[in-house]
């Protein structure tokens, strides 16, 4: 394993999110120091270089998400300051610059997650705020990006939520040939729920992923890649990483269009407490075969299924232990 680049000291406070773009050759990091930093891969030297850093919000920047490159170099960020800002890279006199093209600010409370929808749905993004409302925005004119219209809004739980300590998170299903789906972590209920559009294109709460012993910090829907089932991973405050398998009961219901609230048979196929500390984030690789989880134990763990279908920890990575940390 080659260590390419270290982040140490590049931000003035905690880095909360790192996100690769679609091609995997750019990286955005965002931090409590209110800045976003863009890293570019220098293929010749094999290192990552940070050329641009800009003040993005007036509070901690919690998450960033890249739009599909079809729409240009576009980034969305959400923050404690209750806003979501859409950024676009522009050139002025051969100088690259990130400019805020739109600010979405109509919620009460921290915007806790933002994620662009899969490309086939157009230029859309979903946000969830501390008030427990998921909102879906769409750029009506993909050439200007300044105008975003809220096309959907639905609460994740029953009744209003004013739990400042709660955390909401969401992840789109990237599957192209099913109805729109996403999984949402619901702060106070200690569960994650699958939301799906019904026949009237209304988002409905469907299956519940339960068994969490605390707030769900993060959810991640694995790229389907034509598997007969779906995988969703959750990161929980109770220190566990869980993988849920969604098998389609309804004999092709998902694909042929039949709608039902209980379409998937949900089973928790893996439950790991290896971190032994709060687990913050989980994310799948592009083929949905490797799961990464990061926890307060200062380690990233990578999980992979064996050929018999059991999920195992394939390696533990930490910055301090250098190249030996990658234990096969």
């Amino acid at each position: 394993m080659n260590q390419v680049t270290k982040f140490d000291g590049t931000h003035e406070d905690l880095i909360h999110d790192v996100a690769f773009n679609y091609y995997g050759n750019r990286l955005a990091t965002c931090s409590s120091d209110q800045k976003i930093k863009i890293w570019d891969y220098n293929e010749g030297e094999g290192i990552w270089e940070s050329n641009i850093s800009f003040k993005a919000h007036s509070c901690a920047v919690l998450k960033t998400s890249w739009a599909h490159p079809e729409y240009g170099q576009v980034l969305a960020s959400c923050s404690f300051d209750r806003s979501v800002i859409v950024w676009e890279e522009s050139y002025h006199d051969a100088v690259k610059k990130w400019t805020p093209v739109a600010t979405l600010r109509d919620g009460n409370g921290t915007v806790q997650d933002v994620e662009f929808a899969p490309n086939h749905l157009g230029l859309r993004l979903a946000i969830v705020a501390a008030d427990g409302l998921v909102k879906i925005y769409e750029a009506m004119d993909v050439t200007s990006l300044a105008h975003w219209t809220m096309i959907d809004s639905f609460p994740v739980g029953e009744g209003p939520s004013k739990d400042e300590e709660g955390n909401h998170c969401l992840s789109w299903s990237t599957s192209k040939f099913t109805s729109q789906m996403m999984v949402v972590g619901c702060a106070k209920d200690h569960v994650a729920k699958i939301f799906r559009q019904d026949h009237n294109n209304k988002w409905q709460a469907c299956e519940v992923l339960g068994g969490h012993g605390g707030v769900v910090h993060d959810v991640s829907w694995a790229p389907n890649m034509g598997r007969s089932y779906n995988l969703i991973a959750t990161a929980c405050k109770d220190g566990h990483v869980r993988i849920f398998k969604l098998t389609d009961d309804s004999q092709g219901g998902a694909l042929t269009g039949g709608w039902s609230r209980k379409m998937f048979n949900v089973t928790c196929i893996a439950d790991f407490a290896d971190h032994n500390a709060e687990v913050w984030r989980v994310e799948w690789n592009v083929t949905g075969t490797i799961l990464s989880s990061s926890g307060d134990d200062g380690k990233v763990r990578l999980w992979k299924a064996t050929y018999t279908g059991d999920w195992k920890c394939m390696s533990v990575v930490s910055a301090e232990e250098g190249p030996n940390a990658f234990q096969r």
Partner: protein
Amino acid sequence: MVAVVGRDVLKILNVTEWGAEEAINLKAVGVRNNFAGSMDVKWGPTSGRDAKIATIGTNGPIVIWDIGTHNKIGRTIKEHTRSVNRICFSPQEPNLLLSASSDSTIRLWDLRVGNKPGTVMDAKDIVREVQFNPTSMNDIVAGYESGNIQRWDLRNPLAGEKKFMAHMGFVTSLDYHPSGRFLASGGRDRTIKVWDMEDEKRREIHTIPTIQYTSKVQWRPNRPYQLAASFKDESTVQVFDVRRPYVPLHVLSQHDKDATSILWKDSDVLWTVSKDKTFASTLVKGQTISADLLPGGKAAMNCYGQLAFTVSTKAGPDSFERDLVPKPGRPNAKAVALDGSSEPMVYRTRQTGGVFDCELFNHEAFIYCAQNYSMEAGNIREVCEHNSNVAWQANKYRDSQAWTALKLFFSEIAEPAIVVSQVDAVTSEASTTITTKEEEQQDDDDDIDTLETMAAKPVVPSLFAIKVSDAPVKRNWSHDDTVRNLLEFYAEQGEVQMCVTILLVLAEEEDLPEFRLSEQWFGSYIDLLSRFKLWSIATAVSQACKDVRIHTMNQDSTTIHTSCSSCMKPILTRAPSSSGFWACDRCRKVLSSCSVCHKTVRGIFTWCTQCSHGFHLQHAQEWFSQSAECPRTNVAPAGDTG
């Protein structure tokens, strides 16, 4: 007891552990005297019989209330010619009151002497804020509309010290550190700055960027590094440790609307009032540490198998050092210890991270295979052989075996003997190669078992016995199930490359039932190819797919707009009355004309690389065979035309 004032509130509350109740309502007294509303209130430092509070009336004057004996107005001060912005009692000399006014003066009032005019300090700037130094009686500091801060010595009211620029925009709030040495200032520029007033250079030693501009800032008693602030248009009150400027220690959300003022009752209890017309007393100790709610780490993987991550650790419970560690090396030159210790510390987060090359995805093999696999659906045996070799070249031994096995399924009946030996050879060779590879050693062994069972099928003697007696057909036996197993196996591994290529190669031969997942495989494979920017291959795959949705994928949301090259008017190709695609409706010019014959070029259009004038291909060839220059501009095209 706390005095609370507002637009039509003038009360004294009695705050206990269990709640607050109204002790005295001065509104009635105030209404009678026309001072019902107030902008600011301060308790005099004396208590008991001499207790006084001072308020700034909404309609101008400063009103001193004698509340120790009888709730009445002691004195009204009307000398300021414009509105008063802040008043401040001296912490050491209880009868001295300072007032800051928009009439560009600061005035000092001695309340012992009835109706004596105050000392006037001419600030030459609208005075927003004034504060006494808690340790030095004659030292006061004032904040101005221009963003300047100025220190005054009360013994010399004619001239203050030199002003210094503290903020862009007006100074909203000032508070002296209990040590008397440091000053916190809030400004319109949405920052709180901490100044060392003993340093002649007047540099800020801490800067806190805040969510909104502060309406009030106050140091926390007995916590030398902490201060609380309320903000304009912001319902939360935040407590900061100045050593960690970006993350508030606590975010208190007691109110629904803007918190307008704050006051530390003691080091653990903070009193706040808000535009939602409530007063709140908050036990700050034990509140959620807001840093605990912030995600401490994240990992992400790209399609090249690189892992980018950050992770943090928390050491020990509830302490400042839990999230932060002292920075190694020399402390920052600006650092000054606020708690009186000689060693100033600069901290950094307990977080590490970077981008590592973890080889999580063999992208080189993927790209090699994508570029070299044959997807032709004709000659299965040759194509399988070719693909097997490609996979072998890419060190994908398992895939190479699979291709070989596929080839065997379609083998001519004449060569069963060769087939058997070939399978054996390949299998043994593959297993030795794989065992020398470290990667996924055990997993691959499992895999070989499955493959061997698959590959072993053709060599089962009974099967062959039956088949050989049949008429020579291309397909040895019905192996749809085996192929389907193979596809599902690869789908399970996320190897859509294999799934798609096999599907395409077998498209005509294999009577495969409709795979409802196959379009997902195509979609995913095309997406993966796009990530590696292999556009041509992605297009070839989508063109080769029979599924309509995949086949027409590239046509989705693709539109071509044409405009006239001389007047920029969009060309409507379908309008019946118009001249169509070949001429512009507005300027009546012929579009894309040939520079030689001046007729519209329909078909291959070539153009001069220098001036972009166009030609019929034939005319261009003829012209440039005789002349080196473009017929329109007389410049020589660089290199070839078209």
